[in-house]
């Protein structure tokens, strides 16, 4: 038996239809899952901030009584520098730049890569010529002083 007759007899058309449908369905499902995956991971990464936000709403009055540390001195580079300075204090010097970026990323600091580049450009972070990096305390202190005046 040859030709279309053979295909019909052996359910060839339905096999092809089922086959292509399953492949499409599986890949569509997979694409939906991975399209949502990074959003879920983002929520997971920022879970502490989210929980705080939720609690904050509930205890708005309590929060008012316990003010946030004063960060008004820091804008743009100042704020970035302050956050990275804290991380570097924890890590110690000299520090590994990729590790610093990784730490910043896991602590929910926005744009950790670009921030690191920005701090290097501004001279706040500089290489020790052995592959590690140092924090320029002098420049940082000037920055802090400058922002207070």
């Amino acid at each position: 038996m040859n030709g279309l007759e053979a295909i019909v007899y052996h359910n060839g058309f339905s096999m092809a239809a089922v086959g292509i449908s399953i492949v499409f369905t599986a890949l569509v499902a997979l694409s939906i899952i991975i399209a949502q995956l990074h959003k879920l991971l983002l929520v997971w990464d920022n879970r502490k901030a989210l929980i705080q936000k939720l609690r904050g709403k509930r205890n708005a009055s309590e929060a008012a009584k316990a003010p946030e540390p004063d960060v008004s001195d820091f804008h743009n580079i100042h704020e970035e520098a302050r956050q990275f300075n804290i991380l570097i204090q924890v890590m110690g010097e000299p520090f590994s730049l990729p590790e610093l970026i990784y730490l910043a990323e896991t602590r929910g600091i926005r744009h950790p890569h670009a921030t690191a580049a920005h701090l290097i450009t501004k001279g706040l972070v500089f290489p020790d010529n052995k592959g590690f990096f140092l924090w320029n305390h002098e420049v940082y202190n000037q920055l802090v002083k400058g922002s207070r005046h």
Partner: protein
Amino acid sequence: MSNLFELVNMSGFLYLTPQMLIMWLIAAVLVYLAVAREFEPLLLLPIGFGILLANLPITGLMEPGEGLIWRFYHYGIQWEIIPPLIFLGVGAMTDFGPVLANPKLLFLGAGAQVGVYITFLSAHIFGFNLAESAVIGIIGGADGPTTIYLAAKLAPHMLGSCAVAAYSYMAMVPIVQPPVMRLLTTKKERTIRMKTNRKVGRLEKILFPFLASLMIILLIPAAAPLMAMFMLGNVFRESRVVERLSHAAQNELMNISTIFLGLPVGATMNAEQFLRPDVIFIFVLGLVAFMISTASGVLIAKFMNLFLKEGKKINPLVGAAGVSAVPMAARVVHSMGAKEDKKNYLLMHAMGPNVAGVIGTVMAAGIFLTLIQ
């Protein structure tokens, strides 16, 4: 004197047949393509040598139960060991980043499987049985190990010819695909620039092989051997804690597996099995399958563009990378795009459908196994 006659009688010269000499020529062509033209040399060279060995008389190399190469074939391919090991290596070399950054590119990997099914039906019309048709169809996926895996299970007598067809077309991607791509796209479409993808995090890359394994293996259990090893290799890579295993899977294991894949596959091609009219059909239908897969990938991309906003449109050339000849198909897409617009860098975008094509072809093979075996 009688000893001399005995020696002559025991030599292979007396048993040579014209068909064997033709097979030597075929072996020489494959070796030439591998050495001089560098067409898939890692596979075509051992396959070519395997063909030569299989067509030497009274060697017993492919004697069931006894022959050396038969043992490689039996324990490596019939026992389904080597193709999954190759997939382990491929998984360790695969970066799913482009797919994760732009999941809609997965559709293009599915689109290219249309060719597999159209060719499956066409082969059946030409008189091949269902199992043989499935193996011929899967050539369109342009995935050598999957073709070998499926052929070994469904139509072992076609293993050699289908493997050679699959690897030949994989090698000829730069010749076969561009005319189809040019025919189906306008110059304007070929110059579409795709936006740079978002950054993909490490955790996302680690989770993907687990999620993909769960979903695909639960849906198509017959795809488990290849899919499981593919994703395991990728877990090695992305976890970054077993660099040694990842390196071994990508290099030593992959190289050893490639040797023990190519040689026995070539050795299955003896003159009686290969010099038959239906083998020509296999090559012609395989080529058709490959061209339809390329075309369907491009057309699916064009179809998706109907629903995508300006600035988010897909360059339809990228659809052609949905066949799973990794990374050759993606490179061809990139060079075609760059010919139209030198600043258009399509390589990373094309890698998305390219790896999706691998997943799609494995699923298609799994479905054939489920429905036909």
